[in-house]
């Protein structure tokens, strides 16, 4: 049996997926990224390989594709593919009905329109600052002294939304602290933060040409409060994926590996 690997070295998390010959997922891993991208990829792929009987490490895989910001530093990858193409492919093989993706990663937001065959039709990216990214959420949750899951749950309890005016992560954090200090309801502030990010997602999705059948990928896709806010601003129901949305980049990379490696 041949196995194919995809390794998505993100700025915050490193994800790895191993696919069987028929495209079924054999194993997956999500690890916090280290400062050294090569080491992150090695740890993630090793941990993933150990989950599959008969595999000892990355060297036992037939073909590996690297992706993510550290894609050039995956030492055992035969090639690298941009995370934009990989997210499109990962989502496409998970749910071929999806036509657009909002990928909220650790350091950027991407709007990706997907073609019928899973390739990228168009994309737009916000990579100039951390506003609305995973780093932004980490800072906001920190202001509430909560985990990301608790923060998401808190926002869902809000009956009203307090708008957050600052887009900059640093200033937004100060604004949140000031609002909390004023005694404003925390759940309404949290809902305001979700709405601010949803608006940025709206712009990216529209810039990429997203019309319908949209889904979320990346770590922030697990944030239920954000999903609801995006549905509200886009006026489209967000399609839920059957595979962890944080794995989409690695899954797409593994699928590219399967297609390319299978031809060898």
């Amino acid at each position: 049996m041949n196995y194919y690997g995809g390794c998505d070295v993100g700025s915050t998390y490193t994800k790895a997926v191993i696919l069987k010959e028929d495209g079924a997922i054999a194993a997956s891993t999500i690890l916090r990224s280290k400062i050294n991208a090569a080491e992150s990829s090695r740890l993630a792929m090793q941990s993933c390989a150990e989950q599959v009987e008969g595999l000892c490490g990355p060297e036992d895989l037939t073909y590996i594709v690297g992706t993510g910001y550290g894609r050039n530093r995956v030492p055992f990858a035969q090639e690298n593919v941009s995370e934009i193409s990989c997210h499109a492919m990962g989502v496409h093989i998970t749910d071929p009905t999806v036509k657009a993706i909002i990928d909220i990663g650790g350091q950027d937001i991407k709007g990706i329109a997907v073609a019928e065959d899973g390739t990228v039709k168009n994309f737009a990216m916000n990579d100039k600052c951390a506003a609305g990214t995973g780093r932004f959420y980490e800072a906001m949750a920190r202001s509430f002294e909560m985990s990301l899951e608790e923060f998401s749950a808190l926002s869902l309890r809000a009956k009203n939304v307090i708008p957050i005016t600052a887009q900059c992560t640093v200033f937004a954090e100060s604004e949140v602290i000031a609002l909390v200090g004023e005694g404003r309801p925390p759940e309404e502030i949290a809902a305001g933060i979700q709405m601010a990010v949803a608006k940025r997602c709206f712009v990216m999705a529209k810039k990429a040409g997203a019309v319908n059948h949209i889904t979320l990928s990346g770590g922030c896709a697990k944030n239920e409060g954000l999903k609801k806010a995006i549905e509200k601003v886009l006026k489209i129901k967000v399609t839920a994926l059957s595979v962890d949305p944080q794995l989409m980049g690695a899954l797409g990379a593994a699928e590219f590996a399967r297609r390319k490696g299978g031809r060898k």
Partner: protein
Amino acid sequence: MKDLKYRVFFERLLSDVKNELVEQALDGGRLALGYSCYYVPEVLLNLEGCFSVRLRAPGIADTSIATYYMSEKTCMYSRSILERAIEGGFNFFAALLSTETCGMMHRAHEHFEMLNLVKDQNERFFVSHLDAPFVTKDYALRHYERQLQKHILDRLNDTYGVDTSETALRTAIEKHNALCRVVTAIGEYRKQKNPPLTGYEFHLIELVSECCPHDLILPYLEETLEELKTRQPDETPWYRVRVVLAGGENDDPDFTKLIEDCGAFVAADRYCFGSLPGREEIEIREGETALAAVARHYIETNQCPRFMNPEKVQGRKRYLKQLADEYSADGLIIQQMKFCEYWEYERMYCQHVMESDYGLPCMGIEKEYINTSTGQLRTRFQAFVEALETKQLAREA
């Protein structure tokens, strides 16, 4: 592919505005004339005893003082030029020839006067501002010709006694055309399926032709052209796709290199100072004066999005498509400096029109003058290359 003989030399020349060839010309008593816009005809700054120097600020790291004077909502190119001027980087200039075309750059040029930037080094230094037309009608052409006479030729003649006679202009045009012929001949190699030079190398060549005295750089360019005749490229083309790179100011060869590192060969260039159409020869028609020919040439070939008349607006799109066809490009990358008032609109417009009306996949990039976030740009370029490749495979299938 073996390195070009003068690649490192060209890179060195571009690392400083006052490079060794500029120094050599200054030592010979010639006048350095700065300019930053296609509306200022380079040929008029290369009359006997003068040489043109394109305004650049290589390696600029901080624009704090310029930002104070011009605000942070202005393009980094204009702020970088002002900052470099404040640092004394253009103190060797005899004059700065400016236009009221790009508003932000014009403000930067005004600060040369307001802050007395070069004048304290050279009493006779002047900044001259010419008014350029928005349309291409006959009256606009005549106005432009008068502006060139008044704000460039007369100022040079009055201040430094530069010979601006018909004969002197014709000689300058001949020399200019000789340079254009060599650069164009080098650029033509990019049309080959397996070209003997990269887009990065060509960008270096085009830039040194704008940043160095023409007569001093020409021998190196001629030798490079000879070298290319026998230069052997690798057996199979190194690139995955071919692109046209268009847009506003771009004097950063590393930007071209970044695109090429992602697998896209920059087969044709069409920016403020690109070789296309920047290195087209000037033709003097029968019965035309040299100055009239220069004015007509620079208005006719001008691809600046500042032109509002429909022929120019449509012509710009047709020109990009023509370049894509001639240079067998699979796609188009349009780069725009952040806050560039003209290209901001043009880029958005092109992104839609080039794909929908001309079937040419197009990616828009908003960039800084000196790019630091190369990781993010790399992701965008690579994704575009992958998308173009997919389309290519689909076409072949």
